[in-house]
């Protein structure tokens, strides 16, 4: 210490890269260093002995001056942070002295100097934190932007959910119209063919609706929020319906579709039929899309069976363009197609197989693909399903004479032989290439009970058969029946002279392909019983549906239908008429309230069918008004059934919370509607 002269100490202080000010008890300047001189533009010699108040105008009554006073009088050290005191002293960046825009940001420490001197001194140390402030501001800005981005993303996500909800509503409304109209159409005077078409149109519309639901569900799957239903259903029927709805497209391309469910001995299972239909629809539509000629086989195999469960392999095999083997693994990834040109040529989102795999996995299964370019594709998925408690009614066996089966397609032939044999029938199965002509003699000899012929057989062949058949039938009382396998849309097929010829045969029955076991069995039953001759098989389901809606003769009942969409009005009115109910229509909540008020004293409504989303006043508001407003006191307890296309979870709760009694999701299921109306009118 003794070696440190004052000169050295001064020099050292002047070299420091912080500002140092020393003041005495009266706050007069004793010293400031070179740094302070540089940043303030002042010279020590000129200021020494001046009051700090006079040197720096802004020092007067400042927090810094207070801190200095405390330090001098009580010895309390103080720290002045930049945040509360950004620029306590007029210090500027070098070369910008006096420029307010270039004040430096400061951080100050004030402390009494511990000396033995009688009068205390105080030192003020100033740090230049301008750079640090800038750095933190930049960081803060980035953090703020980050937060804003995150909020934006959250809002975007919310609006996406809202968009999905809206889309769900918007798409469901027209489909509701389509389905409703098709239901009504099915009950009008239709030819068998028209009936068949309308049934298929309805199945397709339902498939479309399911697809839309499922695509909307894709986000749910991604979020792990998709629930798999557990409801008892007939798997064979589900598969048949799905394939039938799709097959018309395949047949238009000249592709044979064969559904072989013979291995499914226990078709009543518990599971989610719409999800399984969705999987099959998806695989089948791909198969049809990528196949130009040949056939598509849908084969169900039972791999394991216990008393409780059944394990199934469902295979969809096509003879299409195939997939390069090394690309097979990527197929199930979202938004992946074999290559970009696929999308251009065949369309599609590339989402289908991803959904399919996720659905399989959700149902405790998985899916695999085997394919080679140009060799067709084979998609097989497996599922484990619980068996339904209900017992399956086994097929009734036949004891008739052999059946002669002649088809163009080998797979179809094989499947039909297998199926017919299972029913106890002997089958002679031939394809067009076989020794068919030799069989004609046998036909003439009355060796067969039924002839099953493919419509697409060579015309000369059909003619020969027709002649043989004619010869036989003219000699025997018990005539040989003829079943002609047609495509779904037989107006499309070229009607040859021989088909015409066959058509004149009174024993002719037509069965549309793809052949569904149940339809074939039904046809054979009626053919063998020969009590009534069914010439065309319609979807058995629609027959059931029309039975369910018995006419209700309660003309007195007053129902108010509140619905803004004209098509939906008509659908609902049509259904109500069918059940035998009268109904008035209101086009929104306000209109409904008017009608209710008018009628409540004379002939009050007993039931209101209430749409939820309507212009001017929605169903929720209308319901609340009816339940709470004194104006409608006489009708305040009327039963209200909500009918809404909203299918998002929570809708039902919302309806009930508004005071409605029950809830029906659109598209309206006619049977359910009839049930609910009957229930609430009884109440």
């Amino acid at each position, binding site marked *: 210490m003794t070696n440190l002269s004052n000169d050295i100490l001064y020099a050292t202080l002047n070299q420091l890269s912080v500002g140092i000010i020393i003041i005495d008890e009266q706050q007069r300047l004793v010293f400031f260093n070179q740094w302070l001189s540089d940043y303030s533009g002042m010279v020590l010699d000129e200021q020494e002995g001046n009051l700090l108040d006079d040197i720096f105008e802004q020092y007067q009554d400042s927090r810094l001056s207070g801190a200095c006073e*405390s330090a001098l009088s009580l010895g309390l050290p*103080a*720290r002045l*942070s930049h*945040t509360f*005191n950004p620029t306590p002293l007029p210090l500027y960046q070098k070369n910008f002295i006096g420029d307010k825009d270039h004040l430096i940001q400061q951080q100050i420490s004030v402390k009494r100097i511990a000396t033995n001197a009688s009068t205390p001194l105080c030192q003020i140390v100033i740090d230049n934190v301008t750079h640090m402030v800038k750095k*933190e501001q930049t960081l803060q800005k980035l953090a703020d932007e980050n937060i804003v981005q995150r909020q934006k993303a959250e809002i975007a996500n919310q609006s996406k959910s809202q968009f999905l909800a809206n889309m769900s509503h918007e798409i469901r409304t027209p489909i509701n119209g389509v389905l409703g109209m098709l239901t009504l159409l099915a009950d009008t005077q239709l030819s068998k063919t028209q009936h068949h078409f309308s049934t298929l149109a309805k199945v397709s519309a339902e498939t479309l609706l399911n697809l839309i639901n499922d695509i909307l569900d894709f986000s749910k799957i991604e979020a792990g929020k998709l629930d798999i239903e557990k409801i008892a259903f007939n798997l064979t029927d589900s598969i048949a319906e799905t394939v039938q709805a799709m097959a018309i497209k395949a047949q238009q391309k000249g592709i044979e579709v064969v559904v072989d469910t013979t291995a499914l001995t226990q078709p009543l299972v518990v599971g989610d039929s719409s999800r399984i239909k969705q999987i099959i629809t998806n695989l089948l539509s791909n198969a049809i899309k990528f196949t130009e000629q040949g056939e598509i086989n849908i084969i169900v195999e039972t791999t394991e069976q216990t008393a409780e469960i059944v394990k199934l392999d469902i295979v969809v095999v096509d003879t299409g363009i195939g997939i390069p083997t090394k690309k097979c693994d990527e197929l199930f990834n979202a938004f992946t197609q074999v290559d970009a040109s696929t999308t251009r040529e065949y369309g599609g989102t590339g989402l289908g197989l991803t959904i399919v795999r996720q659905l399989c996995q959700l149902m405790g299964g998985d899916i695999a693909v085997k394919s080679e370019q140009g060799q067709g594709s084979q998609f097989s998925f497996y599922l484990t399903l619980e068996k339904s408690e209900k017992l399956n009614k086994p097929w009734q066996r036949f004891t008739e004479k052999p059946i002669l089966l002649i088809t163009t397609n080998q797979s179809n032939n094989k499947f039909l032989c297998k199926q017919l044999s299972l029913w106890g029938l002997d089958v002679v199965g031939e394809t067009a290439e076989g020794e068919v002509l030799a069989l004609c003699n046998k036909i003439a000899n009355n060796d067969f009970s039924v002839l099953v012929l493919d419509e697409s057989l060579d015309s000369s062949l059909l003619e020969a058969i027709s002649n043989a058949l004619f010869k036989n039938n003219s000699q025997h009382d018990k005539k040989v029946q003829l079943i002609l396998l047609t495509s779904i849309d037989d107006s499309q097929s070229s009607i040859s002279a021989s088909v015409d010829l066959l058509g004149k045969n009174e024993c002719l029955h037509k069965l549309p392909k793809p052949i569904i076991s149940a339809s074939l069995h039904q046809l054979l039953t009626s053919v063998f019983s020969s009590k009534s001759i069914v010439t065309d098989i319609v979807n058995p389901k629609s027959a059931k549906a029309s039975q369910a809606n018995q006419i209700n003769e309660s003309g007195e009942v007053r129902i108010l239908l509140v619905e803004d969409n004209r098509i939906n009005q008509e659908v609902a009115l049509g259904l109500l008429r069918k059940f035998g109910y009268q109904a008035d229509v209101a086009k929104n909540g306000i209109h409904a309230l008017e009608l209710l008020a008018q009628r409540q004293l004379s002939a009050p409504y007993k039931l209101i069918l209430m749409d939820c989303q309507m212009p001017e006043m929605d169903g929720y508001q209308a319901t609340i008004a009816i339940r709470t407003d004194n104006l409608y006191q006489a009708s305040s307890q009327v039963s209200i059934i909500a009918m809404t296309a909203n299918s998002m979870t929570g809708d039902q709760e919302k309806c009930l919370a508004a005071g409605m009694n029950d809830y029906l999701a659109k598209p309206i299921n006619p049977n359910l509607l009839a049930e609910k109306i009957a229930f609430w009118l009884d109440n």
Partner: protein
Amino acid sequence: MTENLTPLEVDALTEIFNIGIGRAANSLNQMVSQTVDLTIPKIEILPNIEAKQKLNFDSDMEISAVTQQFSGDFKGQALLMFSKENGLQLVSLLLGNKIPIEDLSELEQDSLVEIGNVILNACFGTVINFLQSSISIEMPEFVQGNINKIFTYSSEHDWSLYIKVKFSLPSENIAGHISFIMDITSLEIFQESVRKFVFGITSKSQG
């Protein structure tokens, strides 16, 4: 073992600390746009172990603290402690930050140091002014960590002058804890000063 202060002495001590802390509130109000009210509900003199329990901080809880060492008539360490969340809240409220912050930046730590410094100085000022003690005080520092890292000066035999401080802001109430950790000798001197002070007042009022 030291004799505890009488209730009267504790009351007097609480009173003078409240005067000091009132000044600190004034200083804070000048620094920030918010109106801050500071109160000291109670002052206690406790063995360190009990004071530590009083703080009610879990051992794994992050604490932000401002500390100043002192020496002279009595020596030890003054601590103003907040839970990390409360510290963040206080700084962002006083700085008027709208966006919640997750961690104090260096400059914000510095602002907490200044707040702590103002409050601790008020306490020191009270001690120096009323108790006529001579102490020298060091610059404030910021420390962060769990209670065992912060409450360091202690040995089993040390004592704490424990002061709970309530920050009443218009929108929020935040609690801070002040501890003057002293060894037993310092505490005895401190208590002696308090007794002298109280005796001074009472004898004045009697005389």
